[in-house]
């Protein structure tokens, strides 16, 4: 199925969880935050959160800013 991850389209298998998605795209799981269809998903729920086709996911971390 297709997901929109940080604005880019990614193909993943059905039933993919957030945790699996992070591994798939090799993202760090530390000090990042995830939004699924505009709602934050608490870290403890990543495991059980299975994604659906067309889901929009934002994964953010921190960078230098003022």
């Amino acid at each position, binding site marked *: 199925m297709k997901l929109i991850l940080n604005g880019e389209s990614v193909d993943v298998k059905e039933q993919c969880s957030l945790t699996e998605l992070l591994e798939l795209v090799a993202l760090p799981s*530390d*000090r990042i*935050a995830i939004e699924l269809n505009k709602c934050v998903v608490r870290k403890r729920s990543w495991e059980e959160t299975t994604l659906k086709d067309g889901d929009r996911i*934002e994964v*953010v971390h*921190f*960078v*230098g*800013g*003022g």
Partner: protein
Amino acid sequence: MEDIFKLGGRDFTSRLIIGTGKYRSYEEMKAAHRASGAEMVTVAVNRVPLDRKAESFLDHLLPDMQILPNTAGCYDADHAVRTARLAREALETDWIKLEVIGDKVTLLPDNEQTLEAARVLVKEGFIVLPYFSDDLIMARKLLDIGCAAVMPLAAPIGSGLGVQNPANLRIMREQLPDATIIVDAGVGVPSDAAIAMELCADAILMNTAIAEAGDAALMATAMKKAVAAGRMVFMAGRRPTRLYASASSPIEGAIK
């Protein structure tokens, strides 16, 4: 003398808050942070790049620094609120520098959207520090809805022009004597920081002036001194200016 800066339920001894953007290297940033004596730094929330290994930026911040995530890059209340929530989730902090800008060219704040976002975030328990234009009426509204402080700009972000409208700051201070006013953005040199503090700002937030100085750490030291110096005027009490001279040495008693 003890001079505590209270903000968001925390006691700070430094009245200088600095950014983490635009440094040429992490070493330079760390040296500048150390030199500045700042106890709080701003960071930006950004999409994790999918193409490359993201190095962990936060590891380069000094320990014990209060991290103040910002909502830079947001053009409306909704994005700012979502960004704030993500920051809170990732850092487990309620602190947020609220920044909703009107356009990419001037980065000037959208006061209206900022107020709307602030309403939501305050309700959700955030310690909201809004960047906005130096507008007394807007400042009052932001405080009325529960912002921990107001952060009027001195001049456009990164312009280095210094306080462009001293009258506005003076009026804001006089009309909001109990408010915490942090001058944010536009400071270019130490005298700009001193002027803002002499106008009775409670603190100053800056990034570019230090990060892009030839010697960032030295400029950070200079800014630290200037902020402290300006603060002392507030505590020491300045004598009023006059157009005419007032002799330092006795006028009489010279030889004839």
